[in-house]
């Protein structure tokens, strides 16, 4: 029993020390702290031309401006959810059933911004779809993580 307790304590202490040390030197380390850092939104200047290997996070205002200048808005939720209400002009690509949307994805323009969304935190389907589109070679992809809930809270139009 004594040995077990001693071993447990050793393992846990070593994990603590190594974990905190490795995290401190890792560029992908997490900042230990009490406040959740705000997710960084894309700079407006990035959201024009160019070709990017990472999807951008955008906020509601950015989404509206991008839509006005021709961006394609993509709803990553299920068709049932989509029919029940979505952002005006959005097309539906259900992230859970991508194989059914091969045709839709092929028709997406490569010279325009694609902005994906889901309901909002913690749903990450919009972000996952955005990453998928980037991996398929689309050069300008963004996601609106605050999602439809944020859109509705702002009193903006939802269409069926």
């Amino acid at each position: 029993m004594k040995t077990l307790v001693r071993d447990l304590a050793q393992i846990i202490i070593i994990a603590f020390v190594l974990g905190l040390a490795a995290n401190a030197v890792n560029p992908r380390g997490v900042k230990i702290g009490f406040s959740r850092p705000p997710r960084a939104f894309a700079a407006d200047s990035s959201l024009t031309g160019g070709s990017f290997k990472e999807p951008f996070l955008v906020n509601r205002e950015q989404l509206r401006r991008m839509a006005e200048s021709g961006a394609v808005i993509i709803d990553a939720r299920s068709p049932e959810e989509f029919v029940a209400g979505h952002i005006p002009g959005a097309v539906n690509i259900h992230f859970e059933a991508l194989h059914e949307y091969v045709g839709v994805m092929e028709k997406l323009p490569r010279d325009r911004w694609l902005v994906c969304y889901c309901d909002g935190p913690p749903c990450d389907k919009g972000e996952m779809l955005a990453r998928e589109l980037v991996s398929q070679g689309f050069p300008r992809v963004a996601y609106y993580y605050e999602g439809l809930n944020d859109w509705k809270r702002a009193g903006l139009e939802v269409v069926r």
Partner: protein
Amino acid sequence: MKRLLLILRLILGVIFIWAAVGKIFDPAQFAENIDNYRLLPYFLTTLTAAILPWLELICGLLLILGRKVAAASLIIIVLNCIFILAIGSAVARGLDIDCGCFSAGSKVGWVRLIEDFALLAVAVVIWREARTLQAR
């Protein structure tokens, strides 16, 4: 029986090391995964993201090396119980999130739960054997 236990130890060890490595390289991503469960205060989320993968790695290594097996398997049992509760609560709440189990993206769901129950069972077998050896 001895050989079977050795094989179980090696399998469980490799799985835990495999699960740990991706997370060790990217604690920021792992913190986001934990945060999506909405179970822990943010401070504990960041602490867990930094330390849990190392706990998994150390326990996995110890199982493979056959050192401190009782303690390592006991920690794995406790971890798996926590994983099952977390994933179970995510499924119950209908959360559609990445599991954070392994480095590759995999959604929470029944498959993940069954996997964790299987790992738990293996860990319990190893632990019981290690305890009897230690008591002798």
